[in-house]
């Protein structure tokens, strides 16, 4: 058995590697571990309330999304138009989109619709934007196109970003702003116990809006009245740029973080961005107390961190290291600009950390290495460190701010005290690649 490909944290730091966007060197086959995936394009697209999606593709492409839809309850809003070779050669499938849409409208009366195209239509340069415009006129409801096209993953418009752009494209411009704040990038609203709501309410007396909290299309439209967008996860960066250009809403990157100092710095940036005073010191103190408390309860545990966790694995590794936990392994595929500061800190202070990538072909035999840690954060870390207890820290919930630190520590303790079966928990989450 060969050793799995891995880097030291130091290999990822430094000026020469600033341009590095992936942990795995280019030109390798791609391994797809059981723990791979996330919400997927379909589930994200269907965050638009009262919408349906017509997925246009060869039969195979939509299978994972449909099964996840059955598991998680959104399949009834999802329709498939299976296309064949003749359709592709003649372009007939584009005509069929109109027919299929008409049939869907005969069956149910959606208030909004997304048409999702795949890799093959990228290569054929099919114009789904025009089709969406036509359907909008024909049926009198908002229709947008989106793309599940991993073939464009390395370009400037990868599908995980463009789908978020598409869902916020339903938000119209508003003549008057009401001072609200939109949270963009996460799939769930910020946790209700996050202090963010309190500090914003105190500072601005304004509403905090999130797409998943909108129960109907009208509520989604109100996001256009907000005066500020706060980008909490990098997947929403095309969306906020587009909303800035189309709706005139400025944005600020204020990411989900777990380090006390990082959170403090982010609140300071938000003060400038929102042009208001943010009083969060008491929440900081609470979080610091919780860190001390949970650190004692958890003891000297070792923790592996994965990329499927609701965090930047590098920022999280830094935070946990500062709190006194041992972080020997990180599983990560991407390196974002945001990560570099944390990578550099880890390289300086925790140079022994090994970084594996989930996707390198040598990972297929990784389980034979039998890495041992006490706790894994993220399904991928839990899979590769198979003896560890797993805290999924999934993206189905969105911890934020100082309270996010408490939430993280609570989930770590829960995972250690009452662990769940990793496989069952992971498959139940309906993750799709």
């Amino acid at each position, binding site marked *: 058995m*060969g050793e799995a490909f891995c880097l030291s944290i130091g290999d990822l730091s430094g000026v020469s590697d600033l341009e590095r966007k992936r942990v795995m060197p280019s*030109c*390798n*086959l*791609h*391994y*797809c571990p*059981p723990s*791979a*995936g996330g919400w997927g394009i379909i589930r994200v697209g269907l965050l638009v309330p009262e919408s349906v999606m017509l997925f246009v593709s*060869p*039969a*195979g*492409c*939509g*299978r*994972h999304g*449909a*099964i996840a*839809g*059955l*598991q998680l309850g959104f*399949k009834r809003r999802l*329709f*498939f*138009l*299976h*296309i*064949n*070779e003749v359709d*592709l050669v003649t372009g007939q499938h584009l005509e*069929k989109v109109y*027919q*299929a849409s008409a*049939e869907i409208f005969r*069956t149910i009366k959606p208030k909004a619709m997304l048409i999702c195209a*795949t*890799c*093959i239509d*990228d*290569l*054929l340069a099919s114009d789904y934007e025009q089709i969406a415009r036509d359907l909008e006129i024909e049926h009198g409801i908002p229709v947008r196109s989106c793309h599940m096209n*991993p*073939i*464009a*993953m*390395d*370009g400037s418009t990868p599908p995980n970003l463009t789908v978020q752009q598409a869902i916020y494209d339903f938000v119209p411009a508003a003549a008057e702003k009401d001072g609200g704040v939109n949270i963009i990038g996460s799939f769930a609203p910020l946790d209700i116990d996050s202090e963010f709501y309190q500090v914003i309410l105190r500072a601005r007396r304004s509403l905090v809006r999130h797409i998943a909290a909108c129960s109907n299309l009208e509520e989604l439209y109100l996001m256009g009245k907000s005066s500020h967008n706060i980008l909490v996860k990098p997947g929403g960066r095309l969306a906020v740029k587009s909303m800035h250009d189309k709706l005139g809403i400025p944005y600020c990157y204020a990411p989900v973080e777990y380090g006390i100092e990082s959170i403090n710095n982010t609140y300071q940036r938000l003060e400038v961005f929102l042009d208001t005073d943010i009083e969060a010191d008491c929440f900081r103190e609470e979080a610091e107390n919780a860190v001390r408390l949970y650190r004692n309860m958890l003891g000297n545990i070792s923790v592996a961190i994965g990329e499927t966790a609701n965090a930047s694995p590098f920022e999280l590794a830094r935070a946990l290291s500062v709190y006194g936990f041992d972080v020997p392994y990180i599983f990560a595929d991407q390196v974002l600009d945001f990560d570099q500061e944390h990578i550099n800190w880890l390289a300086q202070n925790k140079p022994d950390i090994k970084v594996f990538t989930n996707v390198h*072909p*040598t990972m*297929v*035999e990784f*389980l*034979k290495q039998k890495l041992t840690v006490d706790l894994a954060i993220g399904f991928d870390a839990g*899979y590769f460190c*198979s003896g560890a207890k797993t805290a999924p820290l999934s993206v189905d919930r969105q911890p934020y701010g100082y309270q996010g630190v408490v939430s993280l520590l609570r989930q770590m303790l829960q995972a250690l005290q009452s662990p769940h079966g990793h*496989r069952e928990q992971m498959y139940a989450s309906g*993750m*799709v*690649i």
Partner: protein
Amino acid sequence: MKGLFKVLPPFAPDYSGVCSVLYNLGGMVVVHDAGGCTGNITGYDEPRWYGNDSAIFSSELREIDAVLGDDDKMIKKIEDAANVLQRGFIALLGSPAPMVIGEDYQALACLLEKRTGLPVMAFDTNGINYYDSGASMAFLEIARRFVKPTWGTTEPLVNIIGATVLDLGQGGNVRKMSSLLKRAGFERVLCWGMDAGMEEIAGSARAVLNVVAAYSGLAAARFMESEYGIPYLVGIPIGSAPAAEFIRSAAAVLGKKKVAENDIFVKKTCDAGSVLVIGEQVMSNSIRECLRMDMGVERVDVASFFKLNSGIREKGDVQLEQEADLLVLSKEGNYDLVVGDPLYRNLLNMKKGSRYVDFPHIALSSRLYWDRPINFVGEAGYKLLYNYCQAGQHGMNC
């Protein structure tokens, strides 16, 4: 409307069928795709994937490579991985995107064979066809490429061809089939796609019988018959009387007259006069045999979205193409009982009082039921179906 699916999820595609067959054979399978197709296979069509070291990879095709036709990059990726991972063969599978650019997989396979020194199989899969055609391609290719002639030497060996987890699941059904064949007098049973390794399969022309457990095994069995003169039986021994018949037929090939324990089985009558079985053809035919032989059901029709071979198709069997076909069939057929994957149930328009037997099929419902396998080989199949065949007994109303 043809092609529009409002209720059912997409079926397992052809590349999943190929992977299912090759999964345990110690090779390196490369799906020429952007990643999503491979994710379909590993996440949703392969229940053995968790904790296993089977080598299935994506070539990670990107737009620029497709537009420029840059095959060298993919070849280098495969070559590098082959050098690191010691595997016995390479399989190259297609997906929708390379289909659009007319990728020539056979040519790539020739190049790869020269570069790596490993046997390379190429499968022109495209994600449009269903798993059964992919699995069929894979079984046939194995028979053609890897089975070695034995020049007339035989042994009491039987091959089961066509059994994949997509049709038969991971449960004990294949093991039970093997044990029935051993009771018939066979010393060795090789189940391609399940437990048999490539080396064992290479010697499988020594067999005196092939058992075809799914449509996907038919082409390979016919090839083995014409090439090596090995006869084949088609069917899964579901039910008591069919299991006894299965043992008798298999034993006859060995020149033995085997009396199965269940020969004394007394047929019970069933108050379901007409039954529709929805699913893969050989599985559905085998359920039909059980309903007829064990319970005396007179009318049993088979309907399938997958391929129906004319040689084993009966009058009244229906090739389904779209969801509406099933709706119409269920209404017009006036069936008392329907057997099929639970997901078909939502498509049916049945008469009042009719019942439905949940018979999960991974090629449709994927991970939704794969951890809840049902036993159907031998008497277990009879018990499962009989309970539902009695009005007021356990049956789920449609």
